[in-house]
């Protein structure tokens, strides 16, 4: 074995992020000290980012099975059957740390990475979504990060040519030093043509395709697993630059090659590049691989095996092709002007052997690397919870003027119109976007069934209310699932399966670990109850700067199916005279609400929990109504409560007012107007359909209360027969539509 580079010892291992006991485990496993190249390879494979060492014991409790599931966690993305021989392939992934250091490139390469995870499985990406978390709008870096991230997400997806159909943007102090950039991608495949990351077939050649390897991002994976400390901004690693054009060529070439029978296995080079790719492909297949690095296309001169194995240059794929078919593959790549080379072959040794010019630089058992480490880290319920769970409403003054308060709420950074963001994303390319961002809480893309021409729809909901998770990690995570479920049924989609991206602080702190464990328990329970198994996901830990962690943010991406896109409903009121009703509970709670935060600066109280028994009836009613095509509009009531929801329904394409009359309440007016709770919807329908709507609700055992009619140029609210509020549409539009531009 060639020993080039610095001498390997426990100290050097520590610099690579391996704790001393981890280094010992490595030496014991190998029966010797590792070479420098081996140390590099192992350190990335055993990093939190690649090995999930702190999270794995918890993740394995998540439900991942169901008749609809074709491929669960373990592959590059999850695969779910949508009938007619078609499948959707999807996953969500974080790119938080790189985006904080270089927002444009960090976000762009995040989108690039998740798209590769999807098309690597044989699916053509047909929809993107992005969930973004920034610090306070007044924080000095927020505007810079926001501009860079949004441009980066947009430019990459736009150029690559996939519509970005939904997502969310939230501002909160806890993200001041750690923004979140979570990107979701969904692709469409034939259910019997799914490709997997397997290096099988002894003697089969291994092909490298795509961008040349440079020195960029070396140690990116270990960086993503380390807490930021003051001063680390100075030690910025080389930034990875995204090349969406190259990725588009890769996509087309790979899909073309997948039409043939040349391909045995394929995987994108994501975090930890060639290393994780070759190790994972060998480990899954139970085979081995031998690489000869001198054949890797290089961007720079004099690159060492260490650098080649650890580079995170973007837009690269590794694939195994049937022996004798390599020319067919190379021809396809040259048609698309892509660099490709045979860089090794499959063995049955169970080892990853790295050679350069005939010399061995690494000789490692694939299983040792892939299984990695596993910790059940100590947990402890954090004490802040004792403080925040109680809310004394007597200390909260009721608003004098509901109208003024509504305007203030509509202009709140977390509630206002986000067109500034999504208009920078092409949300219509590929002639399939049925519901665009801003039209409903879910995005919907059309999927045509090739034989019959039947037009199905796939709906995507993505987001998370981290405040709820902060106040109660278990219940808050259940609520996040229920909320995604509500988003889907509101457009008429039957929820199928889930992906997640679990963003938390430092897992070595028992309090954070407890939040994580509780959250995973909540996600699992809710997904089990709702039959939306988790088929893929990602964990991002160490979102913490100078000891301050983000609010625990288990981002949820949920996918649903619509049998016929003509059934789809959107949020906006459509016609004068339509009836407006609330489906589900009328009132909510101010505990943990956006109202309490925005108007009173408080984040406390316990949110109303998700209750399967009660809330699933509401979901069922919602689906039955859309299926029966009796609704003109539907929108779930989430942050901002009933009144913000109705205001948004007014401010749609048709721009219609509404006359509301609510029963006199015993409780507080602000609770009625702005309170929050799960499984509540605002629906509208024609007079003719009123009976059918009521029947559907009653049939499912869900409550439905008519609260008004669509019409006029203002939003009027009577409570118990008295006029409580009257706002012109223009005033609401001004508050809602003008806010983002003002603080961005």
């Amino acid at each position: 074995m060639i020993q080039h580079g610095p001498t390997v010892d426990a100290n050097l291992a520590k610099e690579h992020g391996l704790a001393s006991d981890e280094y010992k485990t490595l030496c014991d496993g190998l029966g010797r000290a590792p070479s420098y190249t081996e140390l590099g390879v192992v350190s990335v494979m055993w990093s939190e980012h690649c090995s999930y060492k702190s999270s794995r014991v918890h993740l394995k409790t998540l439900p991942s099975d169901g008749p609809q599931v074709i491929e669960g966690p373990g592959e590059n993305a999850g695969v779910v059957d949508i009938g007619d021989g078609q499948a959707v392939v999807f996953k969500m992934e974080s790119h938080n740390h790189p985006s904080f250091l270089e927002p444009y490139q960090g976000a762009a390469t995040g989108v690039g990475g998740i798209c590769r995870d999807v098309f690597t499985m044989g699916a053509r990406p047909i929809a993107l979504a992005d969930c973004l978390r920034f610090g306070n709008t007044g924080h000095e870096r927020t505007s810079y990060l926001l501009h860079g991230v949004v441009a980066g997400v947009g430019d990459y997806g736009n150029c690559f040519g996939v519509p970005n159909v939904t997502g969310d943007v939230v501002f909160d102090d806890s993200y001041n030093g750690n923004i979140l950039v979570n990107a979701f991608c969904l692709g469409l495949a034939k259910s019997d043509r799914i490709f997997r990351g397997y290096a099988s077939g002894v003697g089969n050649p291994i092909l490298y395709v795509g961008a040349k390897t440079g020195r960029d991002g070396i140690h990116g994976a270990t960086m993503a697993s380390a807490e930021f400390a003051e001063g680390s901004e100075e030690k910025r690693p080389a930034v990875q630059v995204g090349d969406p054009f190259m990725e588009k060529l890769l996509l087309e070439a790979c899909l073309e090659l997948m039409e043939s029978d040349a391909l045995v296995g394929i995987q994108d080079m994501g975090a930890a590049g060639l290393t994780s790719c070759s190790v994972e492909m060998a480990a899954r297949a139970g085979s081995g691989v031998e690489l000869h690095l001198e054949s890797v296309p290089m961007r720079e001169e004099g690159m060492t095996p260490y650098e080649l194995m650890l580079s995170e240059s973007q837009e690269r794929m590794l694939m195994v092709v049937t022996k004798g078919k390599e020319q067919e593959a190379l021809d396809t790549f040259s048609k698309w002007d892509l660099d490709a080379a045979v860089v090794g072959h499959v063995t049955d040794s169970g080892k990853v052997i790295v050679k350069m010019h005939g010399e061995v630089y690494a000789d490692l058992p694939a299983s040792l690397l892939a299984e990695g480490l596993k910790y059940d880290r100590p947990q402890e319920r954090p004490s802040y919870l004792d403080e925040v769970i109680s809310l004394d409403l007597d200390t909260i003054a009721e608003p004098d003027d509901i109208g003024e308060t509504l305007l203030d709420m509509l202009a709140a950074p977390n509630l206002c119109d986000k067109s500034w963001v999504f208009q920078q994303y092409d949300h219509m390319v590929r002639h399939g976007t049925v519901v665009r961002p801003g039209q409903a809480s879910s995005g919907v893309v059309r999927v045509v069934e090739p034989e019959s021409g039947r037009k199905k729809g796939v709906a995507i909901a993505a987001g998370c209310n981290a405040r709820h998770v902060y106040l109660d990690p278990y219940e808050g995570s259940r609520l996040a699932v229920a909320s995604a479920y509500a988003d889907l049924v509101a457009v008429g989609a039957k929820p199928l399966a889930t992906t997640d991206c679990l963003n938390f602080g430092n897992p070595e702190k028992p309090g954070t670990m407890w939040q994580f464990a509780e959250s995973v328990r909540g996600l699992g329970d809710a997904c089990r109850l709702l039959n939306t198994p988790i088929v893929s996901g990602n964990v991002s830990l160490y979102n913490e700067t100078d000891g301050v962690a983000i609010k625990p943010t288990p981002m949820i991406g949920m996918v649903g199916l619509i049998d016929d896109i003509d059934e789809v409903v959107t949020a906006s009121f459509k016609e004068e005279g339509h009836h407006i009703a609330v489906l589900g509970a009328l009132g909510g709670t101010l505990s943990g609400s956006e109202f309490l935060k925005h108007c009173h600066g408080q984040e406390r109280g316990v949110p109303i929990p998700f209750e399967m028994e009660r809330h699933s009836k509401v979901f069922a009613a919602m689906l039955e109504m859309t299926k029966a095509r009796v609704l003109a509009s539907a929108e779930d009531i989430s942050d901002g409560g009933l009144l913000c929801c109705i205001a948004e329904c007014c401010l749609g394409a048709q721009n219609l007012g509404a006359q509301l009359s609510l029963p006199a309440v015993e409780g507080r007016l602000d609770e009625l107007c702005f309170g929050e709770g799960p499984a509540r919807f605002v629906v509208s329908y024609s007079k003719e359909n009123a009976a059918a709507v009521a029947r559907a609700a009653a049939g499912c055992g869900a409550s439905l209360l008519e609260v008004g009619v669509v019409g006029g140029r203002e939003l009027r609210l009577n409570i118990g027969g008295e006029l409580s509020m009257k706002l012109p549409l223009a005033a609401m539009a001004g508050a809602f539509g003008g806010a983002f531009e003002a603080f961005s």
Partner: protein
Amino acid sequence: MARHFGVIRFPGSNCDDDALHIVNTVLADRGATGEILWHKEHSVGQVDGLIVPGGFSYGDYLRAGAIAAHAPIMESVKAFAKAGGPIIGICNGFQILCEAGLLEGALTRNESLRFICKDIYCRIEGRPTPFSKDIPAGRHIRMPIAHAEGCYRHPDVERLEGESQIIFRYCDADGNVTSDANPNGSINNIAGICNASGNVVGLMPHPERACEDVLGKGGSAGLGLFESALDSLANSGAAR
């Protein structure tokens, strides 16, 4: 009568399938057909019309459309234009036709410096072209835009105006040409133009995205451009 359209695919074209879908599926009952033409070909083959689709040919690197304008197939596209064949360049296609010299002027970075994707209105005017002559002059229609470099510039725009070569102009929902209705800063609110002989048309809005109302409820006014082309081909006699 069957009318066959070629849709040119450059590396980085994204709206090629969208355009093909319009001719092959949405307009199939009108006798339209289409095929993809690969940029490395030297001939456009037997087609009655050409669509240069949107997307990011060559990543839009250097300038949008600049590299695609030099693709092997472009010589044949130029010959097709010279012979009077109808050509429409949509978004990136418009940028490519400008860079290739088939249309005048240049498309530069949006004044807001941001990519912008939304529905706009534009008014149809100017001389009759194959892609607009069935739409009554002065009518305004709704179509999406999705571009970062759509700000039209021309050193002598008055000449184009004088020759009635402005075919599409951004306007508001009521048809008024106002600066508020101009999404990207284009001179004189120009959204699309034609060449001196009128057979080559380029525009930034995406008519192919406004052909089926089910897609975002944005309307289907864009269909008018393609129907117009089918009619004008039918009237111009035999297929090429």
